[in-house]
C-alpha cells in the first residue's frame, strides 16, 4: 500500500480513548458507573448451559415514559461496558465518550443508552477468567465456544430485565456492528433502527489471518499453559504481540506516517542491541503493555474466534434472512479502513436494499483507518447524530 501524501490541513487524531495517555480529557458526564445484572439459566449456541450469567452494563440518560428511546451500544473486541463518563477505577473516560453524552452524536439528553460487556469478555461479564461454579476455579479453555449470536442473546435478556420490549436503536463498530446486524436479523420486532459501523457480515480470509496471528502469539507464549495461567504468570508477552498486530490493522498508512513517520527514540545511530529505535516501536510497545493490564488472554482467543466464525447468512439464503428485517439502517464505512474495507459494507448494503430495507449508506473519507469510528471525528459524529435524531422524530412526531 502506498503511503499517502502528507496533508498539512488534516488534524492528526489523538487516538481512541482506551489506549492513549489522556490526562487532560474531561467527560461532560463526570464519573459514571457500571452495574452487574444476573441472568438465570443461559444456553449457548453450542449447547453449554450456564446456571447463571453475570453481565456488566452501564446505562446513561433517562428511559422515556413510553420506553421508546433506548439505544444499545455494542462494543468492539477490546471494549467494555463503560461506554462514556469517567471510569472511577481507571481514571479514564469511557471508550466512546467522544460520541456518547449530552449534546453528542448519541445524545444522552434524548436517548437512554445501554452498553454491556460482551459474553466471553473480561470486564465484568462472565468469561473464561471467571470461576466455574462446580470447581471454583477459572474456566480457562473449558469455557464454551461463544458466538456473536450468544452475545446478542445475552443482551436481549439484559434488555428485558431493564423493562424494555423494543429498542429504538442498536449501534456498534466492528464486532459491535456484527451484533447490531444480528439484532436486526434475528430480533426484527425488537429494534427500529440499526447502525452498523465499519463492519461486515462475515470475515474475509485476511481478517481471519490477522486474528490467527494474534491467537498464535498467545498460545505459543510459554506462560499460556493451555489456558491455565490464572494462578501463575500470565502469557503477557503473547497478548502484547497480539495487540501490537491488531493495533496496526486498526490504523492506516496515513495515520502512522503522521503520528510517527520515521521519528526516532534517542540517538540517530542506534546499536543493534537497542530495543526501540523508532517512535512507532515504542508506541506499539506501550499499546501492548497497557492492553495486557486490562485484558484476559483467553478472552482474546474466545472473542476473536467468535468474530472469525460469524456469518450473518449461515442459516439460510441471504435474501430470505434480509426479508425478515424490519429496522431502518444507517451503514457507515471509512475509505481508509483496510481491515473492514468499504466493499464489505457495500455488499451488506446491496443485500439489504435488494430486500427493500430502507438503508442510508455513507463511506466517509476519514483517513484514520478502522479506528475512525472510535476517535474524535466530527464528520462521523454529525452523520450519526443527525440520523438518530431524524429517525427518532420520524417515529415520534
Amino acid at each position, binding site marked *: 500500500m502506498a503511503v499517502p501524501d502528507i496533508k498539512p490541513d488534516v488534524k492528526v487524531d489523538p487516538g481512541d480513548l482506551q489506549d492513549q495517555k489522556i490526562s487532560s480529557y474531561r467527560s461532560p458526564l463526570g464519573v459514571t458507573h457500571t452495574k452487574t445484572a444476573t441472568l438465570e439459566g443461559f444456553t449457548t449456541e453450542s449447547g453449554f448451559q450456564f446456571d447463571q450469567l453475570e453481565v456488566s452494563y452501564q446505562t446513561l440518560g433517562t428511559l422515556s415514559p413510553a420506553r421508546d428511546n433506548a439505544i444499545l451500544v455494542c462494543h468492539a473486541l477490546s471494549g467494555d461496558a463503560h461506554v462514556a463518563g469517567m471510569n472511577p477505577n481507571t481514571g479514564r473516560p469511557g471508550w466512546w465518550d467522544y460520541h456518547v453524552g449530552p449534546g453528542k452524536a448519541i445524545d444522552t439528553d434524548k436517548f437512554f443508552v445501554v452498553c454491556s460487556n460482551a459474553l466471553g469478555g473480561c470486564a465484568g461479564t462472565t468469561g473464561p477468567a471467571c470461576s466455574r461454579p462446580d470447581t471454583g476455579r477459572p474456566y480457562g479453555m473449558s469455557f464454551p465456544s461463544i458466538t456473536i449470536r450468544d452475545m446478542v442473546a445475552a443482551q436481549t435478556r439484559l434488555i428485558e430485565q431493564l423493562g424494555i420490549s423494543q429498542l429504538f436503536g442498536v449501534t456498534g463498530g466492528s464486532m459491535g456492528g456484527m451484533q447490531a446486524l444480528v439484532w436486526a436479523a434475528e430480533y426484527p420486532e425488537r429494534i427500529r433502527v440499526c447502525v452498523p459501523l465499519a463492519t461486515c457480515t462475515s470475515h474475509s480470509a485476511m481478517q481471519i489471518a490477522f486474528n490467527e496471528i494474534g491467537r498464535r502469539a498467545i498460545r505459543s507464549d510459554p506462560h499460556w499453559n493451555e489456558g491455565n495461567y490464572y494462578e501463575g504468570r500470565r502469557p503477557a508477552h503473547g497478548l502484547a504481540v497480539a495487540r501490537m498486530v491488531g493495533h496496526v490493522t486498526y490504523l492506516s498508512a496515513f495515520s502512522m506516517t503522521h503520528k510517527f513517520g520515521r521519528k526516532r527514540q534517542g540517538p540517530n545511530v542506534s546499536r543493534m542491541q537497542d530495543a526501540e529505535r523508532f517512535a512507532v516501536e515504542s508506541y506499539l510497545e506501550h499499546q501492548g503493555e497497557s492492553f495486557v493490564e486490562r485484558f484476559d488472554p483467553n478472552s482474546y482467543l474466545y472473542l476473536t474466534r467468535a468474530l472469525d466464525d460469524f456469518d450473518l447468512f449461515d442459516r439460510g439464503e441471504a435474501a430470505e434472512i434480509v426479508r425478515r428485517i424490519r429496522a*431502518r439502517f*444507517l451503514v457507515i464505512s471509512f475509505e481508509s479502513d483496510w481491515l473492514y474495507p468499504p466493499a464489505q459494507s*457495500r455488499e451488506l*448494503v*446491496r443485500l439489504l*436494499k*435488494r430486500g*427493500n430495507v*430502507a*438503508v*442510508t*449508506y*455513507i*463511506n*466517509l*473519507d476519514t483517513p484514520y483507518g478502522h479506528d475512525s469510528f472510535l476517535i474524535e471525528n466530527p*464528520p462521523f459524529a*454529525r*452523520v450519526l447524530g*443527525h*440520523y438518530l435524531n*431524524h*429517525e427518532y*422524530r*420520524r417515529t415520534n412526531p
Partner: protein
Amino acid sequence: MNPNIYRTVLDWIPEKSSVLDLGTGDGAFLERLVQSKQIRGEGVEKDPLLVARCVERGLVVHQGDIADGLDQYSSGAFDYVLLLGTFQELMFPLEIIREAFRVGREVIVSYVNFAHLSVRLQVLLHGRTPMTRSLPFPWYRTRNLHFLSLLDFQDVCREAGIREVKRACFNARGAIRLLPNLRAEEVVTLLH
C-alpha cells in the same frame, strides 16, 4: 439548472409514488418532493460531503457512483427514476438509462441542449468552444462529457425503443414551444 425543470418534475410526479433520484446532490430537491408529494424517496450521490447534507435533511441516501450501476436496487423497486442535470456528464448514459428502466417504471431525464442558437453562433462566429448560461464552464473545466441536442436525444430514444411521454423545454425566460432545438437551453423529458 433551470428552476423550471424542478417545477416541471414536481408537477409530473404523482403523490405517494416512490422515487429514486440519481445524482441527488445536497438533497434539496428530493426533500421538496418528499415534503410536497409525500413520496418515498431515495437519493444516490457520490460526494460524501453532499451525502452528509442529505442525512442532515433526514433523507434516505446511498453513497455511490451512478457509473458503477444500480446493482443494489431490485428490479421495479421504484415508480420513477430521476436523472436531472447529470445526463451529459455520464460516460455511458444509455447504459444508465437502461439500468434506470430496470429499477424504475418511468425515467425522467434532463439535459443541456447543445444546439441552442447562442451555442451555434459562438462556434460559427468565434470558432471557440461555447460558454453559455447552461454551459458555464470553459472546455478544460466542464464536467460534461457529451454534447447533445434535442434532436440527438430523440434519435437515441427511437433507436433504443424508448417512448418520450412528456417533454418540456426552457430557456432563461421560460417555456419554449416553437423551434425547441434552436431555442431551448435545457430539456426535461419523461420516458417510458
